[in-house]
């Protein structure tokens, strides 16, 4: 069952000071409300993975790793490769995370990323077919939150996109008699075919102010958030409202404008990191 999360107790004096700076147009770390924290990316941090990326967004750290294997396609999509996204909030990342299988927040995060990548056709899954209907490439994309200081979804999308952009498909041979696929992971030539970059920009609502990239402290007092995934062509490719609050129609329109602008910036940045 999904239940109302415990709202963290924040001393009133702290709450007032946060609300005060936000009303003046700034985050508590003094950046303007619509600016992201510095973004840092380390590629190939787990060399045994087929691809990996560590994203630091301020103090938030997210590690994304990919394993690619040969497997069967989904029966309703026999002519496409498979992408499976999983996310876990590890207990090392925050005193409020507990060990155990992914909870509803982690499942939601993974599913929002999965839908945004899938619906936008960010990856050319149709080019990942080895034997139509029988053998395709299966991409396991796993997201681990290492340190939680707010805005995990945006950081996870940056990490996922960069890990995918780094991924090279291993060399393989199909045995013409048995149809078995022999894979040699020591040889990698073809990069994963990527159609377009996607960024997720989550717009948070604190009081009646809209902002992006809150710290964990700010995120805790946000009444609701709207995650908007945008493509490099400027289309909206995914959306999810989260939190106990609501949005007015006007606020949603503003949030979309913010995410289209910010998404463009993030995509440019990702392309730079991917080089």
């Amino acid at each position: 069952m999904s239940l109302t999360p415990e709202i963290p107790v924040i001393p009133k004096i702290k709450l007032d000071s946060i609300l005060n700076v936000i009303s003046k147009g700034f985050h508590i770390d003094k950046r303007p409300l619509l600016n992201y924290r510095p973004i840092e990316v380390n590629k190939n941090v787990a060399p045994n993975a087929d691809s990996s990326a560590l994203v630091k967004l301020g103090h938030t750290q997210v590690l994304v790793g990919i394993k690619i294997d040969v497997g069967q396609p989904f029966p309703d999509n026999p002519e496409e490769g498979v992408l499976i996204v999983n996310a876990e909030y590890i207990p090392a990342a925050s005193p409020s995370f507990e060990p155990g299988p992914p909870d509803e927040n982690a499942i939601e995060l993974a599913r929002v990323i999965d839908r945004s990548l899938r619906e936008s056709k960010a990856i050319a899954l149709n080019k990942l077919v080895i034997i139509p209907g029988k053998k395709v490439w299966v991409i396991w994309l796993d997201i681990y939150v290492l340190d939680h200081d707010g805005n995990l979804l945006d950081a996870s999308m940056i990490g996922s996109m960069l890990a995918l952009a780094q991924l090279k498909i291993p060399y393989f041979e199909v045995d013409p008699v048995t149809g078995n696929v022999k894979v040699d992971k020591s040889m990698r030539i073809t990069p994963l075919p990527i159609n377009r970059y996607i960024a997720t920009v989550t717009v948070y609502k604190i009081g009646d102010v809209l902002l992006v990239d809150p710290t964990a402290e700010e995120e805790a007092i946000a009444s609701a958030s709207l995650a908007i995934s945008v493509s490099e062509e400027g289309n909206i490719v995914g959306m999810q409202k989260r939190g106990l609050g609501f949005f007015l129609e006007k606020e949603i329109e503003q949030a979309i404008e913010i995410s289209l602008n910010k998404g463009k910036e993030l995509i440019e940045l990702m392309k730079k990191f991917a080089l």
Partner: protein
Amino acid sequence: MKPGKPQLIVNGKRIDGRGPRDLRQIKIEVGVLKNADGSALVEIGGTKVLAAVYGPREVVPRHQEQVDRAIIRCRYRMLSFSTLGERKSPAPTRREIELSKVIREALEPAVLSMQFPRAAIDIFVEVINADGGTRTAGITAASVALADAGIPMLDLVTAVAVGKVDGVIVLDLNEIEDMYGEADMPIAAMPSLKRITMIQLNGVLTPDEFKKALALALEGIDKIYQLQKEALRKKYVEIEE
């Protein structure tokens, strides 16, 4: 494009004969269960969803209690035989876990949970038959069930999906349109207060299409809202007589 995709719009009509801005036939029944504090059954086209509400009641286990408000617990579930094709395993899927959260967060803004500290309000959404729009029917049913249980709310919550099929923005997608269409966007709102409490987009829309789709959804929501109020009124008129 998915294999086996039928043509979804023929001569401006949809696969089930509706125009792009038409809702399916809707039926809302209130108080269908004896034991639950509130209950409702919503049928919209081939989709049939039952919602039951218990509470405010004591929180078990106690550690879930919150000192300043009632907690809302929500479970969305599809019955094992509710979908076409194979039997669905009764174990909760990732989709059901996500939707339980999404439905809870769609209803929370309307419920005055601060009035019942240390209590729990439990919402059970059971999909009896699935033909697209089960989460939105679930929200529509659950908010009527909450009202039927006498839980104070700022407004009812009403939900409907909009989407894009064969390039046309349409209201209230059925299963086939959801499966083969280009976009599906379920939306929930508190109609009188014009507050949007749930929005999910699964698919691709341009910013202009999004605007049109949102406006169409709010139009559909207003129509369903009237039916919700009518259904609630009808039950209490019957009681008076």
